[in-house]
């Protein structure tokens, strides 16, 4: 008995010691627990508990106005606005609030921010070269936007902005157009030597040039469809499994385990797709800055 009492006391003093530091994170923790409880209650009243299969996996991708039920104009605040705003908030929280201390010995959040900074900066430097560093802020912007949007999309009932082709195609076209213009500005007409493979036999070069040209113009398509496709497919599969869980009743534990496994996979995919999009941007930038094979 006295042992347990002492242990309790030790825990109490420890908690008072760390209260100042962990107070904020504890509040966040309780808010998340509360959110999960609310979502669980909402889920009980959802259509999944009704008998029969009425799974609508694509419903989660609908763009809807936040207020009212009117048409979606270009300026209408929609769920796109909300979740993009949240990803701005997430980026600001990590990169601005997290680095508030400016400590030589970083806090946890500051070292996360520094890690992201160092990761992307090194990627730009290694892949595209030192002269690509002026474009690092935009590449970092794209990386952090995709990363935060992907992860925010993993919150149940959220909206994944990067699962829309309109979004990823805009991102990819921005990269494609700016890289092409940059290539011509930096190298003039010799940028076209990117398509003229001088190491190949002369006979093959025109054929290769056509292939290179086609592959160059397919870049924005693959660049954008890869990201949106991966996000959309993952979320649709999650929704389908969740729908099975609702329809199967007690046997729903099997699809629930499936959802857990796929969710883990999706966490991985979210990070990897952000990485892939960024590194491809760096590769294209390298082609623009150093077009000669």
């Amino acid at each position, binding site marked *: 008995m006295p042992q347990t009492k002492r242990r309790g006391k030790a825990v109490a003093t420890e908690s008072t010691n760390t209260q100042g530091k962990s107070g904020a994170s504890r509040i966040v923790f309780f808010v998340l627990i509360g959110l999960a409880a609310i979502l669980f209650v909402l889920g009980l009243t959802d259509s999944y508990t009704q008998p029969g299969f009425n799974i609508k996996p694509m419903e989660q991708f*609908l763009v809807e106005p936040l207020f009212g039920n009117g048409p*979606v104009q270009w300026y209408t605040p*929609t769920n796109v606005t909300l979740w993009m705003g949240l990803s701005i908030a997430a*980026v600001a929280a990590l990169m601005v609030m997290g680095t508030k201390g400016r400590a*030589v010995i970083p806090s946890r959040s500051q070292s996360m921010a520094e890690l992201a900074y160092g990761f992307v900066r090194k990627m730009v430097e290694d892949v595209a070269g030192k002269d690509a560093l002026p474009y690092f802020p935009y590449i970092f912007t794209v990386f952090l936007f995709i990363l935060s949007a992907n992860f925010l999309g993993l919150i149940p009932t959220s909206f994944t902005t990067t699962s829309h082709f309109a979004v990823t195609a805009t991102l990819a076209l921005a990269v494609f157009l700016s890289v092409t213009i940059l290539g011509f500005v930096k190298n003039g007409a010799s940028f076209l030597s990117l398509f003229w493979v001088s190491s190949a036999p002369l006979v093959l070069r025109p054929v290769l040039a056509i292939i290179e040209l086609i592959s160059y113009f397919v870049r924005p398509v693959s660049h954008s469809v890869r990201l949106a496709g991966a996000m959309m497919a993952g979320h649709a599969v999650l929704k389908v499994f969740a729908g099975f869980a609702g329809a199967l009743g007690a046997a729903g534990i099997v699809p629930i385990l499936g959802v857990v496994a796929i969710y883990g996979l999706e966490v991985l995919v979210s990070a990897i797709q952000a990485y892939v999009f960024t590194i491809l941007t760096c590769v294209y930038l390298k082609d623009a800055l150093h077009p000669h094979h």
Partner: protein
Amino acid sequence: MADNAATAAAAPGMPQLDPSSFPNQIFWLVVTLVAIYFILSRVALPRIASVLAERQGTLTNDLAAAEDLKRKAVEAEAAYNKALADARNEANKIAEETRAAIQADLNDAIARADAEIAAKATESEARIGEIRAGAVQSIEEVARAIAGDIAAAVAPGTSIDADAVAAAVSARVKG
């Protein structure tokens, strides 16, 4: 622009392929990218770059300081060893000097003691001689008196010549 519910009904497959929502998404995407770009380029990136530079500087300074301190420690050790050796030499020298001084004092004292002993011995010799001479004289006197008494006892009534007795005793004692 068609009603949202109507478009949703019209495109039951993929909302991604519904062009009516494209301008909205593109507009908000551009807003978001510009916002993140300015947050990063105006606040976050300069801050992180300065923190990293500061850390690099601190590391370099600390390493240089450590190198300096290490050099100082080596110097201090050398100085310590030198001081130790000096002190040891000094101590040896002092011990040697002290030993020599003590030896000299000792020799001096021994010589003085020897002289004193010699003086005392000659003095004692003289006293012994005196005492011996005194003793011989006393024996002579006693022997003279005893010889006179013996002569008186052997030949009563005769006058005894004191000078003859003395001469006889002297001759005997000397004998």
